[in-house]
């Protein structure tokens, strides 16, 4: 009896989390810690997607990108993003020692990225801005945004799978 009762949850666990949960949870805590360090030192709540338009302010005259708050934050957002690239590179060097590349097709990255770029700017944030910082702020707006993009993304990914566009052909 004891084996049966202990077997069922572990089976469910293995099905839901085939790769375990440790690295997911630890990685998530570190992502939160990165935001917290910046916040405690500066009061700034750092999301990742505003980097897109603040960087465009270096090269575009479109008034939209020349707004004061974008110009004022563009330098530190470059540093923040360089840090993100560097942090992941350090992880990869320590734990793997060789580069990793995706099997997701280039047209999916390009087309999906285009929609992500449009959607985060219309929707006032992304996975880190709304999903981590906004949800962490118990913001109604962010919770609704996350519920929306989660639902739509699940539907989209399942549809892609259903019509036979796998991760790698």
């Amino acid at each position, binding site marked *: 009896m004891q084996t049966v009762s202990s077997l069922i949850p572990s089976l469910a666990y293995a099905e839901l*989390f085939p790769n375990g949960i440790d690295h*997911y949870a*630890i*990685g998530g*805590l*570190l*992502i939160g810690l*990165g*935001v*917290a*360090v*910046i*916040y*405690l*030192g*500066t009061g700034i709540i750092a*999301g990742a997607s505003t980097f897109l338009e603040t960087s465009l302010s270096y090269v575009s005259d*479109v008034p*939209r990108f020349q707004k004061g708050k974008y110009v004022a934050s563009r*330098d*530190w957002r470059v*540093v923040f*993003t360089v*840090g*993100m690239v*560097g*942090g992941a*590179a*350090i*992880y*990869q060097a320590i734990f793997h020692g060789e*580069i990793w*590349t*995706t099997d*997701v097709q280039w047209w*999916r990255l390009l*087309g*999906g*990225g*285009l929609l*992500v770029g449009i*959607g985060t*700017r*219309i*929707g*006032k944030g*992304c*996975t*880190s*801005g709304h999903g981590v910082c906004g949800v*962490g702020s118990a913001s109604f*707006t962010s919770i*609704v*945004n996350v519920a929306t*993009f989660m639902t*739509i*993304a699940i*539907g*989209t990914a*399942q549809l892609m799978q259903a019509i036979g566009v796998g991760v790698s052909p």
Partner: protein
Amino acid sequence: MSEKSSGKSNERGPLFMLLILVGGLIFGFGLGFSQMAKPEVVLDFLQFEDFGLLFVMGGAAVVTGTTFAVATRLSGRAPLTGNVYTRRLKSFDKNVLVGGGIFGVGWGVSGICPGAAYASLGLGNYLILFGISGMFVGAYLQGLWRKRGADTTNPTTSAD
């Protein structure tokens, strides 16, 4: 403690930039460690093959939530800027739904979002440059559209 900048808001001294860099390094390391920097892992989550991503976003939100909750109850100001500690609260309107929906389609097609895409580049994943290029083009197009719409419609709340 009072490294408060006296001049322009974008000149905050070397300590400010150093802290931003350290925060970014931890953030990016976490994105690597959590595997979220791999689009495959995100797509596995969205296809219900591995729910581990819930722990990435949940774990991160618990840390930020705790930090924000504690800091906003303190009367102090951030040492490097003098900023007041606030929560991230954006106004709600239909753009939140429209933008979230478009973002959701993009995330579901590609498995990438901005932070994870930058970190993916750090893994050596040069192919992610397709995705990052797409994001810049998308943000630029949205900026152009908003500029055009701004003349005729009500001013919309800006994204951040």
